[in-house]
């Protein structure tokens, strides 16, 4: 009598008596919870990691702006401002490119603050205004260390931006270009050398410390990373930059606006904080995605749990019949079942949450997951973030799934007479099998086929469970492939490496192109090509031609609007590359040498599937051969001081050809006009134009792209400037996505296989008597296996069809939703999923049959 004190104790007696079933059911529930809770926790943890990464990188503040001293004092008294950091910085970036670097000295009030964190790796924080600190990569780049002294030169009105070096060339440049405005302030146009000399500040700075950089190699944007010094307290600033952290990270921007202080959001941070204008996603889209994920997960979880309970009831139908005869009401039986279900749900849920927490907790060290985090750039900040809402949600989710899973089998059982249950009738009452269909199957597939067919009809619930198991696996694969398609929509060719939207991965240019000619550019190209990281280069000689918007510029397809455009100087090879795209006219070399132009009717975007370019249908010009295009003679002085166009300085160039689009790497979204390079250099740019009119060198990176190699290249060639267009991140992201997809497909296949294994091993156990009878009447083990293979085959067929159908539909839905994020996506059916799914289903079926063979052996024993 031990342990059986009250009738409801029966539920755990059943749990212990049917250990295998209990373990499998709990495992199924655990899997479902891992899916549900895991998806949610990964999302919240990733979200948190993004927030932490960005707040560390871009400052943990919600708003920033320029205020005056009175406003600054007022803000200090506001109770909803948690923290505030004052730093004086020059927001004006100097455009001059010199032979050496320009840097920005940002003077801050203090360094140890909750808004920007600077982790010292050497020295100490600057304590005097003539001390500064810089990040580790700048120190390496400039080859300086703590204690070194740097002499920086700058100008009063560009206080924060100073130059390392003597600055002679800069002065010459400024002399030519700077002038004073009406207020007597110098503008770029006419700054006199004596003014410059008077205003020049020469400051010797001692390097007090070096701080840790958040980003490896700083994306090679070295000059944008500030040198940090202590605020000069004696100076009377009228304009000061402040960063503000609101109490509890709540949005108080409007309250601040009522005080007459207008700050801007720090979108890097506020996009992860609710209630700000630039929250990361449209809430509606977010809810749709959550709903979709919830439905899919609930459906999978429900499928797994329902299958487990259906079999539990099948297994115990006789026992429940006896209990009913003994006087157990339907309600008490259902309560017994519910208790058992909820106990298993609680255990499964705790296990699922525990396993998920451990997995996510050590996620950084798991192969595949680590790569994804690295690709997302959040690997250092990523850690488990437990949301109690999710924990509670998981319990509710599991209990609901259990409750719903029990409803139908319990209802069916309730409809059964207790005596019927005792004599072993099945839960599924609709047992009528049309004999003529059976005969047809017999004729086609023999006695094994007929039996298989009849078994499927008789055990619809079990058959459905197998079908769902297979469908889950197939859906996983199909969705995985849809994600690949979505990914390909924003990458030109994921198989090649990466190719950015505009047809190149990175760009390179001179720090100062003054005096540089074609030979220097050729050497630059050769130096780049010598790098393992670089696959090919394409020099882009281009100048932007402005437009007044109404009468001058490049007419668009409607003949109404005149847009700014780039005029490109093409060499012979580049002109030849236009031949396949010629729509009208001729690529007449002689005419081109004399100033003829080629216009591109359309703009192309490369952000398409499998490298096929998409041609813009919105922005195009309707110029045709024979039309004249007016190009300013001096593009730098195109507009008069009053803003009108100086038409005396305009060259009329005849359009000689129209091409569909420019197949060479393009400036994304900008209409192109093409002239010969010789004409471009001779007539359209000033003779002393920097780098002979080179806009930049477009770089396509190789598979061997290595940021460290580029960093070393930068250090060795300080006159060159290399901009990583995000290739490093994109490359990692492609790898990360592939691994993510592999994990999704693996998980789906695993769940499906578990589902089938569970179904098969228990149905064989349930059908022990049937197999014994079949063997008794002369059916061989081989024939029984054949019958089981046919049953498995039917499940595989229906499961695959269901999976492919749902997979296509879900893929379409995902694509439509991703279209909200990126308008560039196009839907492509994931056809590749079909052969992959077929192979996987065949594999699962074969493995299942091996299990069946083993189970049959157990039956014999």
């Amino acid at each position, binding site marked *: *009598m031990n342990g*059986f*004190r*009250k*009738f409801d*104790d*029966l539920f755990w*007696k*059943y749990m*212990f*008596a*049917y250990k295998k079933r209990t373990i499998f059911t709990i495992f199924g529930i655990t899997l479902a919870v891992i899916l549900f809770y895991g998806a949610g926790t990964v999302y919240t943890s990733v979200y948190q990691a993004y927030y932490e990464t960005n707040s560390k990188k871009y400052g943990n503040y919600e708003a920033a702006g320029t205020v005056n001293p009175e406003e600054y004092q007022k803000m200090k008294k506001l109770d909803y401002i948690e923290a505030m950091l004052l730093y004086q910085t020059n927001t004006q970036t100097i455009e001059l490119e010199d032979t050496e670097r320009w840097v920005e000295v940002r003077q801050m009030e203090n360094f140890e603050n909750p808004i920007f964190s600077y982790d010292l790796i050497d020295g100490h924080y600057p304590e005097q205004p003539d001390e500064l600190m810089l990040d580790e990569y700048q120190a390496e780049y400039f080859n300086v260390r703590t204690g070194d002294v740097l002499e920086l030169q700058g100008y009063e009105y560009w206080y924060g931006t100073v130059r390392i070096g003597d600055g002679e060339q800069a002065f010459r440049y400024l002399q030519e270009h700077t002038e004073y405005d009406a207020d007597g302030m110098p503008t770029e146009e006419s700054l006199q050398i004596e003014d410059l000399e008077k205003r020049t500040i020469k400051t010797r700075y001692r390097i007090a410390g070096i701080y840790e950089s958040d980003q490896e190699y700083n994306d090679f944007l070295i000059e944008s990373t500030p040198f940090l010094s202590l605020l000069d307290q004696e100076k009377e600033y009228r304009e000061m930059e402040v960063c503000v952290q609101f109490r509890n990270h709540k949005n108080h921007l409007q309250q601040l606006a009522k005080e007459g202080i207008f700050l801007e959001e720090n979108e890097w941070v506020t996009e992860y904080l609710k209630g700000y204008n630039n929250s990361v996603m449209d809430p509606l889209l977010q809810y749709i995605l959550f709903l979709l994920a919830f439905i899919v997960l609930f459906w999978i979880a429900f499928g797994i749990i329902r299958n487990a309970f259906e079999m539990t009831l099948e297994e115990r139908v*006789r*026992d429940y*019949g*006896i*209990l*009913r*005869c*003994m*006087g*157990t*009401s*339907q*309600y*008490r039986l259902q309560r017994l079942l519910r208790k058992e279900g909820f106990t298993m749900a609680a255990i499964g849920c705790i296990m699922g949450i525990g396993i998920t927490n451990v997995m996510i907790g050590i996620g950084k060290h798991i192969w595949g997951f680590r790569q994804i985090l690295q690709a997302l750039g959040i690997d250092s900040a990523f850690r488990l973030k437990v949301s109690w809402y999710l924990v509670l949600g998981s319990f509710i989710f599991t209990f609901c799934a259990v409750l719903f899973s029990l409803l139908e089998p319990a209802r069916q059982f309730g409809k059964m*007479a*207790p*005596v*019927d249950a*005792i004599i072993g009738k099945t839960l599924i009452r609709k047992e009528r099998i049309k004999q003529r269909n059976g005969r047809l199957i017999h004729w086609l597939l023999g006695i094994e086929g007929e039996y298989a067919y009849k078994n499927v009809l008789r055990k619809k619930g079990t058959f459905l469970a197998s079908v769902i198991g297979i469908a889950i696996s197939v859906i996983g694969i199909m969705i995985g492939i849809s994600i690949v398609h979505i990914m390909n929509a924003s990458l030109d060719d994921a198989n090649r490496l990466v190719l950015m939207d505009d047809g190149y991965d990175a760009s390179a240019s001179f720090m100062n192109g003054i005096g540089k000619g074609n030979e220097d550019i050729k050497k630059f190209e050769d130096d780049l090509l010598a790098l393992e990281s670089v696959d090919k280069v394409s020099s882009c000689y281009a100048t932007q031609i402005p437009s007044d918007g109404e009468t001058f510029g490049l007419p668009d397809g409607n003949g109404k609007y005149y847009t700014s455009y780039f005029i490109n100087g093409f060499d012979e090879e580049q002109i030849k590359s236009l031949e396949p795209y010629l729509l009208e006219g001729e690529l007449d070399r002689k005419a081109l040498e004399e100033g003829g132009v080629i216009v591109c009717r359309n703009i192309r975007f490369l952000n398409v599937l499998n490298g096929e370019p998409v041609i813009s249908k919105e922005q195009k010009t309707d110029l045709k051969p024979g039309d004249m295009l007016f190009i300013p003679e001096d593009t730098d002085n195109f507009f008069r001081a009053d803003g009108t166009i100086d038409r005396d300085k305009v060259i009329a160039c005849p359009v000689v050809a129209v091409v569909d689009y420019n197949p060479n790497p393009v400036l994304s979204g900008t209409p192109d006009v093409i002239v010969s390079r010789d004409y471009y250099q001779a007539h359209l740019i000033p003779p002393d134009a920097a780098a002979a009119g080179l806009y930049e060198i477009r770089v396509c990176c190789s598979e061997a792209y290595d940021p460290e190699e580029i960093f070393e290249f930068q250090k060795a060639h300080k006159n060159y400037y290399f901009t990583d267009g995000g290739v490093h991140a994109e490359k990692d992201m492609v790898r990360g996505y592939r691994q993510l997809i592999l994990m999704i497909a693996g998980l789906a296949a695993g769940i499906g296989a578990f589902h089938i294994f569970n179904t098969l091993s228990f149905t064989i156990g349930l059908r022990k008597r049937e197999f014994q009878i079949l063997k008794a009447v002369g059916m061989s083990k081989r024939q029984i296996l054949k019958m089981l293979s046919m049953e498995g085959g039917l499940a595989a067929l229906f499961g695959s069809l269901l999976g492919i159908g749902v997979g296509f539909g879900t893929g379409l839905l995902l694509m439509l939703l991703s279209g909200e994020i990126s308008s560039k996506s196009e839907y492509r059916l994931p056809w590749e999923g079909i052969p992959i799914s077929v192979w996987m289903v065949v594999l699962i079926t074969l493995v299942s049959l091996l299990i069946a063979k083993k189970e049959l052996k157990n039956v014999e024993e």
Partner: protein
Amino acid sequence: MDIITVKDLTKKYGKDDFEIHAVDHMNLQIDKREIVAITGTSGSGKSTLLHLLGGVIEPTSGDVILDGEKLYELKDEERSAIRRRKIGFVFQSYNLIPILTAEENIISPILLDKKKPDPEYIDELFDMLGMEKWRNHLPNQLSGGQQQRVAIGRALANRPRLILADEPTGNLDHTQAMEIMKILIQSAKKYQQTLVIVTHDMDLAKMCQRIISIQDGKILSDVTNESTLLLDK
């Protein structure tokens, strides 16, 4: 004083051409403490009648009045309560809960009724059944005869007023069958219960006070076994 009244009871299976009247407009009364055998050939409807008497299948029409309560006008909860308090079932294939020991099987109806088992009464039952040594054995560790004794013990656990036994000796040899019958009759007399036994074995039926023969769902004969009555006296 009758404990069971059967009024125009009918149970049909199947439809149209396949319709079978397992019980066909039957009327019957069984008195308290009466020991009744229901006999008939296979498929005559005797088991269906017993199941209808116990309220474990729904009749097509008619009703069963058990101890003044119309069984089929009751809700499932109420009918279940009658089954566990007033009726004890014994089946041909014992139908013990395989995961419970002999003792746990016996006390399960008591626990089901949210009562505490009376240890003295349980001991008395085990003594009467001759199963004292097998209290903690699982059903699959017992012989057929022993399992049926446990099933009888379970049927008697709640001291029901009516014992319904469906071919209780069908799976046993003659010696064991006679022993089981003796236990059933002895306990019915001891605890003043009404016993209804379905059997096709006339030797066993002759041990009862009344023998009802059924054919095609109708009562063929309903006779009082005078020899048994004389023995009782």
